[in-house]
């Protein structure tokens, strides 16, 4: 019980001690706010700007969420196509790899031109989808291909058709793999939406990346830190939600997936 309590409290106490040390160093060394603001300065800045910051957080969340959903559904659909036809896989997989290895900042201007400068948010969405897409595709593909030979033979013995095999064996079997891909993908969707906003700007809507740029330009470093912290918190919450979802959905699976 004490051990459990300690393992829960230890990281929190360490974090609070670090914040305290940070506060002390900044105050005693008289470090200017535009170099390194104290935690209390950041908190004050958050209170002063919370309406803007929370609105931006919501915008970033919205883009991240939709990018993640679109990327996941598209990737699973394409992985299913791959499983049905080797020719489709051989034709499309290299294109997916090309998208994966191309830095998003390099194609951002192009996407922005194509969708129009007025549609910056749509451009960011496309870029975030491109970044988040590949891990789900690769993992789903791997999961579908990893079906045990004996299970596959069992379905052959029972004369299962293509759809029965896909929906009653391959996809459920691949679920742990799909969720692993989605856990990676949700973080990448957030990174993608932030990086894309840095490059493409945000047009009419302003996400957290834009707040960071804006605060940086004005040397309002406490606000910059506040936006950064919100970004981290958003990323952690999204990851935790995915982890929880994984835990609920995989309750039925053996750890060794046997």
């Amino acid at each position, binding site marked *: 019980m004490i051990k459990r309590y300690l393992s829960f409290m230890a990281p929190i106490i360490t974090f609070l001690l670090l914040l305290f040390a940070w506060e002390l160093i900044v105050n005693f060394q008289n470090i200017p706010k535009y170099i390194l603001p104290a935690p209390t300065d950041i908190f004050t800045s958050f209170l002063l700007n919370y309406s803007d910051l929370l609105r931006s957080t919501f915008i970033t969340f919205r883009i991240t969420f939709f990018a993640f959903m679109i990327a996941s559904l598209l990737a699973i659909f394409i992985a299913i196509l791959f499983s049905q036809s080797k020719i489709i896989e051989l034709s499309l997989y290299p294109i997916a790899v090309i998208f994966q290895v191309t830095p998003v900042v390099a194609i951002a201007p192009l996407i922005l031109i194509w969708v129009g400068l007025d549609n910056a948010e749509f451009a960011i969405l496309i870029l975030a989808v491109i970044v988040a897409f590949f891990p789900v595709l690769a993992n789903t593909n791997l999961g579908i291909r990893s079906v045990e030979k004996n*299970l596959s*033979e069992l379905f052959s013995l*029972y*004369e299962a058709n293509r759809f029965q095999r896909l929906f*009653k064996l391959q996809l*459920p*079997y691949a679920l742990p793999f799909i969720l692993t891909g989605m856990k990676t993908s949700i973080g990448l969707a957030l990174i993608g939406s932030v990086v894309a906003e840095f490059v493409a700007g945000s047009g009419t809507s302003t996400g957290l990346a834009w707040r960071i740029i804006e605060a940086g330009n004005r040397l309002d470093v406490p606000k910059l830190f506040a936006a950064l912290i919100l970004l981290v918190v958003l990323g952690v919450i999204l990851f935790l939600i995915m982890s929880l979802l994984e835990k609920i959905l995989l309750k039925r699976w053996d750890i060794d997936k046997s």
Partner: protein
Amino acid sequence: MFKFNKIYKEYDAPILGPISLDIKKNSFVSILGSSGAGKSTLLRLASDLIKPTSGSIEYANNEKPNIGFVFQDPTLLPWRTVIDNVLLPAELTSKNKKLSKEKAYFWLSKVGLEGKENSLPNQLSGGQKMRVSIARAMFQDCSLLLMDEPFAALDEVSRNKLEDDLLDIWKKNELTVLFVTHSVTEAVYLAQRVLVMSSNPGKILDDVIITEKRLRDDGQQSSEFFSKINYLTNILKKEKSE
């Protein structure tokens, strides 16, 4: 039940053959042999999962029987409950659609899993999982049961219990069993007939009829039981040393 007529199987190299074999209806046949002798390939050929490179398989009345296959691992779907795993053949095979849920419950109770119907596979022991696998095979009214080292991964007590339960199921049903094993004792204990296979490529080295029945419970095995075990062990040893 079925006949193998000069069956050959090769992938990059010859795996099996020539094998000619006649399996009688309602018989219990064990297949013994070292690893790589093609025992599993023989079962897959018998089940029509793979096709022979040459030769033919002739089923009685030219009709493929209802085949149950029990693999070395239980091949259960981990996301399905025990009862849903047993019901799988009814969902997949059109001719099995009429099989009822009551029948699945019946077979689960037959293999000693009454009350475990709604458990998940990861809540069962290795022996229990194998019992589900046997129940699933029997549920679909199979007349030919192919078993590929099904008890190899189990402890001795579970293994002995399952062997006896399997014999009981075989005796009480119209069932032909083809049972692959590494264990000479298991082969002699279970079967009426033991086929010994050589490797590279797999061929039938000997075909031994077991007439005397065994009595495990009181520990009194017949002298024939032991002499057959010695005989088969010597064949396997000789085959391995060549």
